[in-house]
């Protein structure tokens, strides 16, 4: 039996254990162990992706117990893609963030790396598992570790933000757990495939299944910060330490979108979601409201970090709306956007982290002259911003293209309009930032003479290389968007 799916999840788990131990010998060991563990799970994820593309769905029985009794890791082309994405971002962020972790939380760096790896375990497990209750436990592992890491940020405010996140996050996870309870009452099983088979045999619309569906989806929406349920996100991500904000912003919400897609397609079945229930129109409207609300709230921010967190809220609307359009194009667009949005948000937050590292503050009034002093970082930021806006060679354009096509096919013109309006608002947002960075003169606070030229104060190489790699990935994912859709997403949807 091929053990790669288990190694994928267990590498960061044992890494977390040994990181904690090694910190007693020398604190810096914990970082190297974390690096090795995430690299190992990245290699394992790539191997699994190769297996899935060669031989179809990989099923791994944990400890040899056969499903539906035992817990199963079930990896098909959809979650193989998400697994590679998670482990790659986790690894690159570790490379990029070591300097800023050393600066922001020098005394608690080992505990940060332990929690970081547990967080990655949670995300990878949520994506890989084929068991509904296991999914709940792993969501809670992810959430618990993020509460602790958010609280490592700015004194006072970050603790309050983390507490708010706990209150709302617990409600979300509990709703999901209740939904699983109703599914268990109806089907007597917790394995996703098994539940799906039994649900198909239940004729008509059972109110227990409807309750289960509504509770599960509501719980996942709270965790992914869909618009009216988003209140925890901006503060939590804005006050967290940069090293963590960079990994949680691209991954957490996107993994929850993946869970929603998985529940809709694999567990309840698209036939049930769209033909038996008549919720799709309402949810597409919710997506539209989330897109517009996120975009307009971003307009009123005067801090680059806060602005980016509202853009996440806006992007969640794209994926939820797209997944609920009820056609293959919309669903393919939503899944492609999981990949693309993770890359774009990661690039934005990498650039943000570099600016924070050099300038300390990222309020708009602190951003003057950035193009001159940090040209490489700004190049990355511009590319990521173009991708968020949706300019063709970058990947953001292609997922929006699929979403708009899906919206027209479904006749949801309001969704297409919201997509275009939000692109325009994003263009306004980013060009406002670029204007400050490019044209406004540098404040000479020290009273020094301007020596004619500007001194470059670029971030260290270890922070620039990951940004460069992700920028390349943004363009590559755009150029190969058709290949990704045809080889990974469409086979899964059929």
């Amino acid at each position, binding site marked *: 039996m091929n053990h790669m799916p288990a190694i994928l999840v267990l590498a960061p788990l044992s890494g977390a254990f040994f990181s904690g131990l090694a910190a007693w010998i020398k604190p810096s060991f914990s970082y190297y162990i974390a690096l090795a563990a995430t690299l190992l799970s990245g290699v394992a994820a790539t191997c699994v992706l190769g297996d899935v593309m060669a031989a179809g769905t990989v099923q791994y029985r944990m400890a040899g117990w056969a499903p539906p009794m035992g817990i199963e890791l079930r990896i098909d082309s959809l979650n193989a893609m998400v697994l590679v994405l998670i482990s790659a971002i986790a690894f690159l962020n570790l490379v990029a963030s070591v300097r800023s972790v050393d600066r922001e939380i020098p005394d608690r760096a080992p505990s940060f790396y332990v929690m970081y790896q547990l967080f990655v375990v949670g995300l990878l497990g949520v994506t890989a598992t084929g068991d509904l209750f296991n999914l709940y436990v792993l969501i809670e592992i992810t959430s618990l570790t993020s509460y602790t890491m958010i609280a490592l940020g700015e004194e006072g405010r970050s603790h309050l933000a983390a*507490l708010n996140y706990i209150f709302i996050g617990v*409600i979300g996870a509990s709703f999901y757990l209740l939904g699983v*309870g109703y599914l*268990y009452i109806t089907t007597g099983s917790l394995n996703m495939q098994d539940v799906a088979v039994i649900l198909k045999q239940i004729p008509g619309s059972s109110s227990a299944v409807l309750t289960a569906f509504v509770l599960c989806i509501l719980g996942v929406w709270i965790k992914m910060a869909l618009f009216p349920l988003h209140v925890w996100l901006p503060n939590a991500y804005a006050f967290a330490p940069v090293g963590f904000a960079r990994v949680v912003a691209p991954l957490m919400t996107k993994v929850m979108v993946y869970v929603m897609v998985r529940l809709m397609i694999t567990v309840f079945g698209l036939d049930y979601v769209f033909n038996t229930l008549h919720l799709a129109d309402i949810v597409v409207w919710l997506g539209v409201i989330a897109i517009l609300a996120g975009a307009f709230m971003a307009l009123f921010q005067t801090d680059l970090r806060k602005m980016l967190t509202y853009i996440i809220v806006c992007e969640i609307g794209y994926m939820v709306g797209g997944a609920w359009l009820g056609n293959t194009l919309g669903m393919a667009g939503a899944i492609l956007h999981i990949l693309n949005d993770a890359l774009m948000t990661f690039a934005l937050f990498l650039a943000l982290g570099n600016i924070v590292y050099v300038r300390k503050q990222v309020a708009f009034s602190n951003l003057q002259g950035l193009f001159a002093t940090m040209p490489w970082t700004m190049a990355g930021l511009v590319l990521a911003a173009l991708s968020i806006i949706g300019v063709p060679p970058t990947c953001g354009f292609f997922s929006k293209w699929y979403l708009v096509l899906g919206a027209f096919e479904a006749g949801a013109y309001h969704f297409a309009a919201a997509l275009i309006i939000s692109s325009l608002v994003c263009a306004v947002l980013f060009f406002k930032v670029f204007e400050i960075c490019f044209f406004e003169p540098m404040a000479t606070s020290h009273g020094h003479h301007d020596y004619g030229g500007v001194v470059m104060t670029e971030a260290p190489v270890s922070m620039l290389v990951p940004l460069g790699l992700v920028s390349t990935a943004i363009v590559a994912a755009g150029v190969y968007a058709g290949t990704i859709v045809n080889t990974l997403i469409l086979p899964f949807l059929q």
Partner: protein
Amino acid sequence: MTELVGLIVAKYNFWLYIILMMIGLYAMIAKNNLMKKLVGMNIFQTAIILFYVSIGYKHGATLPIIQGDHGGHGTHGAVIHAAEYINPLPHVLMLTAIVVSVATFGVAMALCVRVYRRYQTLEEDELRIRLSEK
């Protein structure tokens, strides 16, 4: 009216968990003190744990320990009827859920301590004033 009473009595475990859950949710939304909110959160989680425990129960069933079969492995003795035993699986699941809720509660209390040290209060309205002062 009698139908409604019948419905409530027949499914009383569902009604009880919903009432408990709403008490918890009310505390989380309406209370001003962070500690009281935490207590509400714990009631909320406990309601769901009780719900799970109650769905494993069967009328006239006993503990899921196989009786009258010492030493053998089910080859001797009577055939085991699942209906005679309470379903243990929801209870086992809840062991994990209890661990999760205890861990969440612990992290939240630790955060409350940090907030109190920084602002000398756990009342939300006072915290809001302190935050806007800066």
